[in-house]
């Protein structure tokens, strides 16, 4: 058993499932967004956009997508970093930056979604 403290779930199966599930969520979210934009996009007004994004279901769905993005990005980039970055300090620094960025995105996303 190889142990590592920095990965998402500390279990390969766990990471694997989360990675696939979050990919499905993101794919579904992308389809919904692209679909809606394709139908309403050409002369979209701010009010229309706000009305769409303000609905409770799309807020919940967006939050789910943000959380999925956070998990997906962390697992994926942790994997990339542990494959290609052999220098420990560099790797930890890189992952630290990633962690902070993801955290900022989540908080910012939540404040946009639920702050108005």
């Amino acid at each position: 058993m190889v142990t590592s403290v920095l990965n998402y779930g500390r279990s390969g199966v766990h990471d694997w499932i989360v990675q696939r599930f979050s990919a499905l969520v993101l794919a579904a979210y992308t389809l919904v967004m692209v679909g809606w934009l394709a139908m309403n996009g050409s002369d979209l007004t701010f009010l229309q956009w706000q009305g769409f994004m303000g609905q409770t279901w799309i807020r919940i769905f967006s939050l789910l997508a943000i959380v999925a993005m956070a998990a997906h990005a962390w697992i994926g980039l942790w994997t990339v970093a542990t494959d290609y970055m052999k220098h420990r300090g560099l790797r930890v620094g890189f992952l630290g930056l990633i962690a902070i960025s993801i955290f900022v995105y989540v908080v910012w996303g939540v404040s946009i979604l639920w702050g108005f």
Partner: protein
Amino acid sequence: MLISIYRYNPETDREPYMQDIDVDMPEGKDLMVLDVLNLIKEKDETLSYRRSCREGVCGSDGMNMNGKNGLACITPISEVAKNNKLVVRPLPGLPVIRDLVVDMAIFYKQYERIKPYLQNTTPASGRERLQSPEDRAKLDGLYECILCACCSTSCPSFWWNPEKFVGPAGLLQAYRFLADNRDEATSERLSELDDPFSVFRCRGIMNCVSVCPKGLNPTKAIGHIRDMLLSRAT
């Protein structure tokens, strides 16, 4: 034919270099790569490589020929040479001891790690543990591995994490014992593999399948292990 060989003797060379040798090929005969190396060695005794059975059974002469890993003894020149040229290098990703001889310690360490032996504490009912033909058939495509390391040394995931990722050869053997109905350590074996590296660094690149001189399919075995881990976890 022009043969370009990776040469490195740590006692005399500061760094490895490629040596180009023009070899007169016998007319009307297709030699194996190993035969050609033997021809070269007759003239230059310092050339080092491993070989033993010279018929694809022992797994000693795994090397990289024109970019693809394989056993030199069963790889015909006609199959690998391009434009009358052949580049021979040691198996990639392992430390070179000398010329085409690599240090396989890490490869064996990963093999050892998966406990490649039957674990069973129940006393055998008769003189031996019998298996039904169906159960025995589950080991086909697994037990034939000769541990030549062609697969693991062609695997990028093994290059990047040879200490942590078991590699295709080790995982094929891990599944050989997981699939064996006489083995009682299935759950312990799975617990040993359930981390983000040992199995899950396999990204399905399938270089292992494309190079295995025995025609085995480590990617498929890894898929079975992953399924076992998944069904145990859910």
